[in-house]
Structures are given as C-alpha cells and as structure tokens.
C-alpha cells in the first residue's frame, strides 16, 4: 500500500525549486567607459522608468549620477552631493583618478559611502536608496547613502499594546529599527550583523545581540541556519521562522516575535539573539521559551503583587481557553454527575430544545466565531465594526432564541474568546487546540481530554529551541529563575543577578563568548 501511495505522490507534477538564474551580465564588472556602463545598465534593467541618471562634469571629467526615483532624498542629495561636486575646486584638466580621490578623501558625500565593482552591486545600492556615481575612466562606482523613501512613522505597536512603557514600535525600514535599539543600549557590546537573505529579493536582515552575554555557539547556530535558508524572496520575518525552529512537530512556536524595541532589548540582554528583517516591523527572537508567552513589558512596570496576579491570570486563561469548551462538552455528555445540581438543570433545560448534540453545537459556534474574527481582521475598519455588531446579534441572541444553540454554550464561547485574547502570541496554537479538544471531549470524554492534554504537554516538553528546554525553568526545575515565571519578584531582587538563557537547567548551550 505504501509503495502505491509513494508512486502516486511522485507522479504528481511538481515544480522543484530552482534558484533564479542571474540576469546575463549582472555579475560582470564595471568598465572604464562611462557610456558603455550606462548602456549596460539600461540594458540590464530593461530601461526601467524609475532609473534616473544625470551626466555632469566635475573637474572636466564626465560623471554620471544614478538614483532610483523616489528612493533618494533630493534635499539631502543636493546638499551633500550635488553642491560639493559642483564646487569641488578641481581644475578643468583633472584626471579621473583625481576626481575619484576627491570623492574618497576630499569630500564627505555621505556618511555611508561605499565603492563597488559589479553591476549586481550597483543595482543593490540603487534599490537600497543610494545615489550612485560613475566616473569616466574608472571601472568602479561610488555609492552614497541618502535614503529618502517614504515609510510609516513610528507608532504604537498594534499587536503588543501596553499600559505603561514606551509607545514606540518597530517600523518597516530595518535601519530605523536599529537606531531604536541603539538608543536603548548605549553599550559597545551591542552588535548588529547585517546579512542578506532571499536570492531574488536580497532582503537585509540583521542579527542583534549582546557580545558580552550571548553564547558563541548559539550565535553560530543562528547564523548558520539563516545562511542555509534558501528562499527566493523574504518579505516577512515569518519566512525565516521555520529555519530557526527545531525539535518535534509542534503547535507551539519555538521562535518569538516582537514589535517592541524595549522587549527586544530585554531579551537580548538575557543572551538571546534577535533578527531584524527589512520590510517588516516584526523582529524574531530565539530561543523562545513557553513561559515567555505569558510575559509582557507591563509585568515589569507594574508592582510585583499585581504583576504576579496577572501572570496567574494568564496561565489560567491559557488552560481555560483550550480546555473549557472541550471539558464542558465532555462533562455534559459523559459525566454530568460532576456538575452541581443547579447548573446541571440549566444545561439540561437548554439541551431540551436544541437539535444538535453538544459537540456539534460547540464546533458550529466556535467556527462561526472564528469566521467573524477573521472577517473583522480583513475588512476595512468601518465595516469591521458592523461585523462585531452582527456577530453579537447572530450568536448572542438570534441563535439562542431560535433554539439552535443553548445559552450556556454562548457563555462558554464568550469566556473562551476573551481568555484567548489575554495571550495573543499563542492564538494560533490555542485555536487549533481548542477545536481538537472539543472533538476529543465530545467523543472520548474526560479520558480523551486527559490523553490529549498529556500528549500536548509532552510535546511541549520535548521541544528544545536552540538546545534549551522549552519548559525550562519549570521543568527541568530550577528555583532561581522561577522568580520571573509564575511570579514576578521585585526589581530589587531581579536586578541582583542577571539571568542568561545558557544558564537555564537542561540547557545544551555553552557559555563561550564570541
């Protein structure tokens, strides 16, 4: 049977991934003739409309200035490049070498100034918002960074809202994000390592870490994984997540994301490595442990007793949201003796007139809820509000009055939904688990839920993101790090000793420094 299935699968036509072949001539070196260079450049980009070039003569030597329209700040360009070039003071008989020397040492055409030799590099710089200079007689180009493309201004992160603390969130340009991080750690130990990812998109990604805290082996592993990621385009940090995860197939993430610079800074100070991706405000953090899903920056700004209470609330919310519907269905179907009498009477009364068994009721209503939630996300805001009103009417009132579902089930869905919003990072896992537990509870009762819960917890315990047990320090247990897991002790205690991920119990990460 298996060989038959194998054969069937192989017969399916699939397009195997082929890395894109370079455009012919892309990797060739620049030539000394400016005209030849320009002809080649126009030919390579197919005379693209956004490529703007201008010929000027500086010191009698012909130069071409190329920019990608809209990528360069024209005010900056005229101030730091055009004017110095026009007023270079070079004589009319200057040689190309003298002009080149001028750009190298006698002028400051931009803080970010690089020389390049191939057409591929030229296009990379052009597409990154650099102004490019080509000099007649020199087989190289000079790129000066003067980005001026439009981007979304820094605003409050939409996915990580907090009561106290910074309201700054990452934006799409990676370099702006780097500055936000740098402003928060004024230490030379903070390192940024930029690399390129995506064969076609050549997206800039940046490893962020503290060199005096991070483990050398961890860093090497992250670097190696990212380098081995063979992707055509990298448009979002999520593309790189699977390459950083390891361990058994699991519903729980092994790589964290954050939109907040303060959160990222806190994580890298514990020896973690962050990855910024150009074009997305979501940074990746690895290794990411299970207990971090229940931590937020607000925990560290509130008073310890309240922060501890909120932590407990979050843990309770997690189990409530995945288990409540399944447990309700299981108990009502298989073990109603576990309900107190008054509650049992209410449930029995509501079930008298509903046509569906409880399991189907739960599945239907949760499915409708997910539909509405997804619709509310995708629709434009003005219509999105209408969806929530319709949803409340449809589920909250009409369905119950029509006798399609019971009122207790509506309460269960409401509590479940609200609980899931308390831990947004686990929403994907929670949604799938919730449906799974409803199915299991409806067919196998409390016994099935126990089996499912055991399998889920064992799966969680088996995960080792970057060699660190996902459930550390709860299991394997270590008392000291627990000060920031179920409770949050005062900063007077937290500040006394730094916790690093390589010190967690069961960690395979060594403490070598880069």
């Amino acid at each position: 049977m298996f060989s038959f299935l194998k054969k069937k699968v192989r017969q399916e036509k699939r397009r195997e991934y082929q890395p894109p072949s370079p455009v012919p001539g892309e990797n060739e070196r620049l030539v000394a003739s400016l005209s030849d260079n320009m002809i080649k450049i126009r030919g390579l980009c197919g005379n693209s409309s956004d490529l703007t070039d201008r010929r000027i003569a500086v010191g009698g030597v012909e130069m071409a200035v190329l920019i990608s329209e809209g990528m360069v700040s024209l005010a900056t360009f005229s101030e730091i490049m055009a004017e110095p070039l026009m007023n270079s003071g070079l004589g009319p008989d200057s040689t190309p070498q003298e002009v080149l020397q001028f750009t190298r040492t006698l002028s400051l055409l931009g803080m970010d100034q690089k020389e390049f030799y191939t057409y591929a590099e030229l296009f990379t710089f052009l597409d990154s918002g650099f102004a490019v200079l080509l000099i007649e007689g020199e087989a190289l180009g000079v790129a000066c960074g003067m980005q001026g493309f439009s981007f979304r201004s820094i605003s409050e992160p939409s996915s990580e809202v907090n009561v106290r603390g910074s309201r700054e969130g990452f934006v799409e340009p990676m370099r702006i994000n780097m500055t936000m991080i740098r402003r928060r750690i004024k230490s030379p130990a903070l390192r940024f390592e930029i690399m390129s990812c995506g064969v076609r998109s050549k997206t800039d990604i940046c490893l962020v870490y503290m060199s005096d805290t991070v483990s050398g082996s961890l860093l090497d592993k992250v670097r190696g994984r990212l380098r081995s990621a063979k992707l055509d385009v990298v448009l979002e940090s999520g593309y790189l997540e699977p390459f950083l995860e390891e361990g058994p197939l699991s519903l729980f993430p092994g790589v964290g994301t954050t939109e907040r610079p303060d959160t990222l800074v806190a994580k890298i100070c514990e020896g973690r490595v962050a990855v910024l991706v150009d074009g997305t405000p979501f940074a990746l953090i690895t290794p990411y442990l299970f207990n971090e899903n229940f931590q937020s920056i607000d925990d560290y700004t509130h008073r310890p007793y309240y922060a501890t209470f909120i932590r407990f609330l979050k843990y309770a919310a997690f189990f409530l949201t995945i288990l409540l519907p399944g447990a309700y269905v299981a108990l009502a179907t298989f073990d109603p003796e576990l309900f107190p009498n008054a509650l049992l009477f209410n449930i029995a009364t509501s079930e008298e007139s509903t046509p569906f068994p409880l399991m189907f009721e739960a599945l239907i209503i949760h499915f409708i809820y997910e539909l509405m939630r997804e619709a509310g996300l995708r629709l434009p805001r003005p219509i999105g509000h209408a969806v929530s009103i319709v949803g409340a009417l449809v589920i909250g009132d009409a369905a119950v009055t029509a006798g399609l579902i019971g009122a207790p089930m509506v309460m269960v869905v409401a509590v479940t939904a609200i609980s899931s919003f308390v831990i947004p990072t686990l929403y994907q896992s929670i949604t799938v688990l919730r449906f799974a537990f409803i199915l299991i509870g409806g067919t196998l009762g409390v016994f099935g839920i126990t089996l499912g819960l055991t399998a889920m917890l064992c799966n969680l315990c088996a995960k080792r993101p970057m060699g660190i047990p996902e459930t550390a320090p709860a299991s394997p247990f270590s008392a000291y790090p627990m000060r920031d897991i179920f409770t949050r002790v005062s900063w007077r205690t937290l500040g006394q000793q730094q916790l690093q991920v390589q010190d967690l119990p069961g960690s395979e990460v060594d403490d070598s420094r880069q």
Partner: protein
Amino acid sequence: MPQITVSQFFIMLFLCRSFSFFTIVPGLRESASGSAGLASLVLFVVFSVLIMLPSFLILRRQKGVGLIEFAYQRSQGAGFACATLFALLALSVAIDNVVHFAVFITSAVYPNDSNVIFVVLFTLVALYMVYLGLESTARFSGLALILLLGSLVMIVLSLAREFDTVGLISPFLGGVRPVVQGGAVTVNESSELMLVLLFIPYLKGNVKKGFLWWVLGVFALLEGMIFVTLCTVGQYAVTQSYPLYAVAKMARLFYFQRMDAVHMVIWTMIGLIKSALYLFIAQRCLCFLFGAKRKNTILLALGGITILCSLLLAHYFTAYQALYNFTLTGIPLYVAVLLVPVLLILIPGRRRKEDKA
C-alpha cells in the same frame, strides 16, 4: 544517549509507584489492609534497601554502567540474555499497567464501554511519549508530580471534617504475619527497583541518594494515603473496589461536589508515564539486540504486542490474575535485581574491551 537528572528519574519512579497504589484491585492480592498496612510500609522501606544493596555494591565500581552494559562487559551471551530478559520483564509490566488501567476505567468510570478504545488510545499516547524521548517524559513528570500532590492536598483538606481516628487500631491485631506479608507484597509489586539498575547510564547525579529519597517518599505517600482512607471513609473503603477513588468521590471543595474527575485525570497521566517508562526500557533493551537504527520499528512492534496482550488479558481476567499473582510472588523482581547481578559477577570477565551495544 538521552540523559536526565537523578531527581527527574526518581520523580518518575515515585509516580509509577503511586499508580500501583491508586489502582489496588481487591481480590488480586493478599496483603495487609487497614492499620496493618501502615506498619507493613516500614518493612517495605527496609526490604527495598536490603534487596538493592547487592546490586549497588556490584555496580559500585562501574561508573555510569547499568546492568545490561555490565552484562555485555562480562560476555556477549550474558548481555544478550540480560537484554532479552529485561525487555520481556519491562514489556510485561507495561502490559500489566495497561490492563490495570483498562479494568479500572471500565469498572469505576465508564462501565458500559468497551476495553478496546481505552487500551488502544492509552497505548498509542504512551508510544508517542516514548517516541518523543526520555527527556520529555521526565520533564512532564515534574508537572505531573505537582498536579498529583496538589490534588491529594485538595482531597485531604476537603475531607478534614470527616476525620475520625477510631478506625486506627493496632497493626498487629491479626498477628505479625499480615504485616510481614504486606511488607513483602509491597516490595514484590515494586518493579521500579529493577528500573533503577537499568537506568544508571542515563542518569546524572547521585543514584544512591536519589534511591533513598524515593523509598522515603513512597513510604510517606502510601502511609499518608492509607491513614487518610482509614480516618475518613473507614470501613466504607472495604466495600469499594477502588478505595482511593471512593475517597476522591466523597471529597467536596467549594462548589465542586466531587473530585473523582481530578483523581481520574491525575491517575491517567501517571499511568501514561509509567507505561512510557517501561516501554522505553523495553525498546532500549531490544535496541541492544537489533540495533539502535531500528528503534522506531521496535517501538511499533512493542505497541502492537502491548495492545494485543492487554486486550486478551482484560478479556480473560483469570489469566491476568494468574500473571499478577505470579508477579506478586516476587520471583521476577528477585531474579532481575538479585540473581542476575550475582550471576554476572560469577561469569569471568572478557579480556578485551567491547563496544557498547
């Protein structure tokens, strides 16, 4: 080779031992009940330490070497025989565990349902736990221990008002024999003693210290639970097939009228840990014979055998009784823990070093 800490290992053993107690089936064993049980547990501590002494002394000089590795060091044939013996023993305990579970759940919780679904699903989840590895089961045991202790505290607190010590009578009311017999039976049931010798290569830490803590912990747990049962439900427990389940049914806490669901959840988790542990050791023993590359195939085979045998034994309860009574004689345990180490010492050791299997 997977490695876990000594504390994680003995937590797993503690849970395994508590499972046997939670699912005592009257009529399957002649042991001390009531107050005599309290005294027999003291003998359990003494007997356990005495039985393990020879093996610890024999393996004392072999740092990090378990019984099977030691056997292979002595001779290939001895290693083969040991691996086969322990694989069979571990598999039989795993099967016994599954049958115990199935009998309990179809007697006390779901009397109208078939054994098949419980046996199959229980075994599948246990196999999955073995597949995930020893470390994940060990870590999960830490969480299960907290749940177990929490649930026991809840049950005991909710029954506080029922406490009456009149049921605590002299443990020697029926003579010394029931106490000694009870102690011996409690030890004979403790197949976990065998696991200690087999898991040594996988453990980081002081095994002897961990073992002592385990014995004392089991003593404290069983002593406490017998005490609570005697003082709360008293003679009512005698009328129930599963006394601790009856205690949990009686417990009321705040709005919750009964706590038997809590008992069932904890006990199912513990049963899974126990099955996974024994299936793991059976797999490892068979890997010595067939090669580590085939471990997943071996695991599937073990799962199939477990399911088949469990279904048969659950159906033919007299056969299960016979097997269980044979276990209670202690012969399998003493062979594994006493006879095998002594025989291995008598085999002349091999001159050249052998690779580990």
